[in-house]
């Protein structure tokens, strides 16, 4: 199989890298927002981005660094832990990012009304 196809599309290394960089940028931007505007909602976004980043990296490690033969030797609780914890982190982090984003937008709207 074509090596470029395998790297870019089938394994998705480069695009996954873009996603991880983007999540890091979300976290850094939220950190900057929370320091500039002194708001709690941006801090919530930072925690969400951190949680999503760890979940994403966990999934990538699970997919790329373990083989099917290794996974067959794992116990059931290890397997379910390795599958469910990153997904739970992703879901929680997405919720936290969305809540922080919404709450930040509400704060900005309130400031715009006060002016």
């Amino acid at each position, binding site marked *: 199989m074509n090596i470029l196809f395998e790297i870019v*599309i*089938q394994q*998705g290394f480069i*695009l*996954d890298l*873009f*996603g991880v*960089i*983007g*999540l*890091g*940028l*979300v976290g*850094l*931007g*939220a950190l*900057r*927002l929370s320091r*500039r505007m002194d708001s709690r909602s*941006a801090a919530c976004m930072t925690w969400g981005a951190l949680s999503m980043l760890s979940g994403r990296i966990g999934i990538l490690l699970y997919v790329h660094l373990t083989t099917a033969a290794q996974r067959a030797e794992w116990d059931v609780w290890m397997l379910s832990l390795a599958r469910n914890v990153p*997904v739970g982190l992703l*879901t929680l982090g*997405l*919720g936290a*990012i*969305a809540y922080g*984003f*919404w709450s*930040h*937008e509400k704060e*900005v*709207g309130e400031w*715009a009304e006060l002016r």
Partner: protein
Amino acid sequence: MVLFMVPFPPMMLASIDAMRPVFLMVVGLSLLLVAWRLTRRCSGWSARMLMGGALLLAFGYGLVLPLYAAEVIVPFRNLAFYPHADPALTLGWHVSKLFAMNGGWLLFGMGLALYSGLFESAPARKTQTVSAHP
């Protein structure tokens, strides 16, 4: 078409398995809505990138991931386990998922970083110069 070959599983909307896709759909669409409301107040590249990222994420979270969770689309990695699945269609959805999710987060992150002024350097401090020879 995979859409018609794989029978749609009976999925109750309130069951635990279906909670996560529904949550993802709601959150993806609310991200889009909030980004639209926020970008009415700002302009330029930060607004464009936030909006583009939110659109891609809403497509990914609102449509593609629930379709994967409902097994209407089979995962490209497990294509060998589904002999009736169309490989070309599976590959197309795989590529669109990769671009929507990863490109969406990259655009959203860039937009948020630009919006929060992450790339702006701190304003130069005005230092009072004391001349040594008055």
